[in-house]
């Protein structure tokens, strides 16, 4: 646990949520856990921003929500990618790749 937690750059939270949900339907807590896990604990999502983001994505029709039962048999709200969300994920992943490549190139040649 030596790695410092990084703050998320603006707009990346949505991308992370969409990417996480591409693996399958999840509830909010699991999403935050999964992001933390996948980023080797580097990225930690504040709950204060996670839920507003989920509701915003739901409103935009990128993810769908339904109530289901969790592993420990509790009522939980599950989110999954919609068709639009899947497209959006591709577009944003692509854009992110280009952005990071470009930034890396600039930093490398500086």
């Amino acid at each position: 646990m030596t790695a410092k937690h990084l703050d998320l750059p603006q707009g990346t939270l949505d991308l992370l949520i969409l990417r996480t949900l591409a693996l399958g339907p999840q509830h909010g807590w699991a999403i935050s856990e999964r992001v933390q896990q996948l980023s080797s604990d580097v990225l930690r999502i504040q709950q204060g921003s996670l839920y507003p983001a989920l509701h915003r994505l739901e409103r935009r029709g990128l993810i769908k929500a339904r109530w289901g039962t969790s592993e420990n048999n509790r009522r939980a709200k599950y989110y999954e990618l919609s068709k639009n969300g899947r497209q959006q994920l591709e577009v944003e992943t692509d854009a992110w790749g280009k952005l990071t490549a470009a930034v890396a190139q600039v930093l490398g040649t500086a």
Partner: protein
Amino acid sequence: MFNDIVFRLRSLFRRSMVENDLNDELQFHIEQHVEKLVRAGLTREEAARQTRLQFGGLSQVKEDCRESRGMTLLETAAQDMRYALRQLGKAPGFTITAVLILALGIGANAAIFTLVNAMLLKNLPVADPKSLVRVGDAYQCCVNDVALDDGDYALFSTDTYEHFKKDVPEFEELAAMQAGFGFFNPLTTRRDGDGNLAHSSVSEFVSSNYFRTFGLRPHAGRLLSDADDVKGAPVVAIMSYEAWTNNYNRDSSVIGSTFWMNTKPVTIVGIAPPGFYGDRLATAPPDFYLPMKQIATIESADYVDDPGRMWLYVIGRVKPGVDRAALQAKLSGQLRQLLAPSKNFSTVHDKPLLEKAHVVLTDGGGGIQIMQLGYTSKLTLLMWISGLVLLIACANIANLLLVRGMGRKTEMSVRTALGAARMRIVRQLLTESIVLAVLGGTAALGVSYLGTRMLLALAFSGEPSVPIHASPSWEVLGFALGVSLVTGVLFGVAPAWIAAQAEPADALRTGARNVTGGASLLQRSLIVLQTALSLILLVGAGLFAASLNKLQSTDMKLDTKNRYILHIDPQAAGYLPSQVGALYQTMEERFHAIPGVMKVGISSVTPMEAHNSNDPIQIQGRSDLHKMAGWDRVNAEYFDAVGTRVVMGRGIGVRDTPSAPMIAVVNQAFVSTFFKPGENPIGAHFGSPGPSSGDAMIVGIVEDTVYTDVRMKNHPMTFVPILQRAASDKRPIDKVGALYAGTIVLETSRPMDDIQAVARKTLAGINPNLTMVKFQTFDEQIADRFTQERLISRLMTLFGGLALLLAAVGLYGVTSYNVARRSSEIGIRMALGAERSSVIAMVMRGAMLQTLLGLAIGLPVAMLCVRFVKAQLYEITNADASVLMVAILTLAVAACIAGLIPARRAASVEPQVALRNE
């Protein structure tokens, strides 16, 4: 986008469910996190504590979630609305007054606007009205055969029309229609078959391409074809959808059946489309459309073949891209060529007029706007008046809202002090105004619908088939709502803004005690404005009432007591001019046989009737003055029957038979027009200018009984025996249409309620085809001539009353507001020994001051305004003192009442109670 809206709406309407879901979701997250920490080895309490710390403010997260769901804006709007309704409900007096004022002010405007829209702006219900062009801009009627002085032709002969149609390729179609159809030449119509009765119906003769030009399709059967419009072809007619519905219950067997029109057989070949009321707005639209050439067969009208006699209006559809100015010049040139050989331009006086002959092209989409002509100035006046009423209503609403806004200053301050954002307060007050405006606007729609129906009933009483409907159009709906919204927003925001600007602490500190805080200058000014405007409307109402009174009380030199007027049409019943002599004799005998009938007058026209014919006159042996006189053909009892007195010489007698030399009786105006003062006209001869100027000898002079219109009370008139013909008239007798009488006047010894039925039976007894075209008492006939004046006068009174009511309500509102605000001050005054009467006087002084100021401003303005309506007034050129006095007194009394109620309330303040409230 759609997803977004559904999502927001879901948030809005299923608020509690969404809220519960949000709770559950966050709760689940917290529990999961606690579980995780417990599994990692923490105690449950420690785990909960850390989770809470990490999670931050739960309410904040929830608020953020709500925000990102997008429910705040809509939700607060709904919240504001609910709150506004609750607030309005808590002040029912204010709400009802405001809604009522808005409803009356806007409703009156919407009603007038609906009428204006329907009468002046609406197009005919035809295909593509924009490409229709009317040839002509004047409204000459009905058959004309003289050269026009101004050369502006709008009426054309069959010959001219046919040349235009043939030689002007710029027109896709060019249609012609009879100018003077309607009441003056109705058709006596009877459907073939036993037991069917003859009745009078309205018909219009039109060119065969009439319906084609308008782009109409038949509702049933067919419309006119070119083969129908040929002399000698079997006569066919198209029935209007309205007549088919109202008179024949949409019986499909009507199509193809035979009708007897003026005793000639006519086949109905089709039904016109629903809603089509002809080429012009008329109080009685045509029941039948017939091919124009057939007017020769049906009405024995010979003018259809005469190139010098003009009887048609012309409307055409121009091809796209045609230049109107060039077309107008081309048509004018053709017209001069066509008119050149006409006998109308044969005299030295008339010849130069040919050069002036021209046509003016106008938009034809609205049809022949002859009815609009009479109403435009009146409707414009009404629009101004209703605009003034709206202004008063707005001032009133503004005042009410201001009063209310100021009254709630404390409330607003408290809310600001408690942390409400200013914008939130402003938005909430705005919502309240808008809710109020929408309520008012909705009520206004009801008022406007009823108002339009009332206007139509007033304007066209007894004419049920006017094709104008009372239902407001979309434009009117938008207009009403727009006006109410603007008023509401404008005057709702101002006090809201002022209230929100106030420093809460200041407001709260002074909120409890109001000694000086009376109505603001703005409020007082609004009251003054309302009073001034109301005075103007009241003076206007008084002037129009005085004008109507003057019109009606004019000495028309006639007698209406126990007099009844029957309109008949012997030609329509199949009589030839050579047969009417015997008919009139039979009529005189049969009507005299009715018990109670004293006099039986038979004539072409009667006094105060819409119709009157004029001819140029020359006195034999004198120069032609180029002056006209009206003429009437009458029988021996006619003058007694209408109450015209002979002042010199003799009237018309039974011995003035067709074989006796032609004589005439003239009126005093005729004498003063054609003779020098002091000359004795008895024995002089007159006639049409030229060789026939010696046709009739004057044997008597009668009073100036008013024909046609009170405004024409000194119009020269000539009366000749009904059957006599001028010696110079060499036509065969059956060509002399003037011999047909149009009216029978009955004078009875007592009022006879059943005279209509008796008269109808008497006529039918003479000939079943002899229908009664119209029956009225003499008084009713005269009253009909004042319909428009009465309409205007009544509406002015109505609007004046409305303005008065609004002004009184406004004054009452502001005064009572002041009284309420000053109740503690008044209490102190009374505790210190002020008399109740002096308190009343104090309050009244304030109210009266504003009224007096309003009167002082309104009076000169009202007197100035008279000049704008002078043209519509009869013999009234300035506001006379009595009208002004009545208006001022009415307003003063209303103001007194409006002030006295709150003043008495102020005086009844109990000092102890008022002081305890401190």
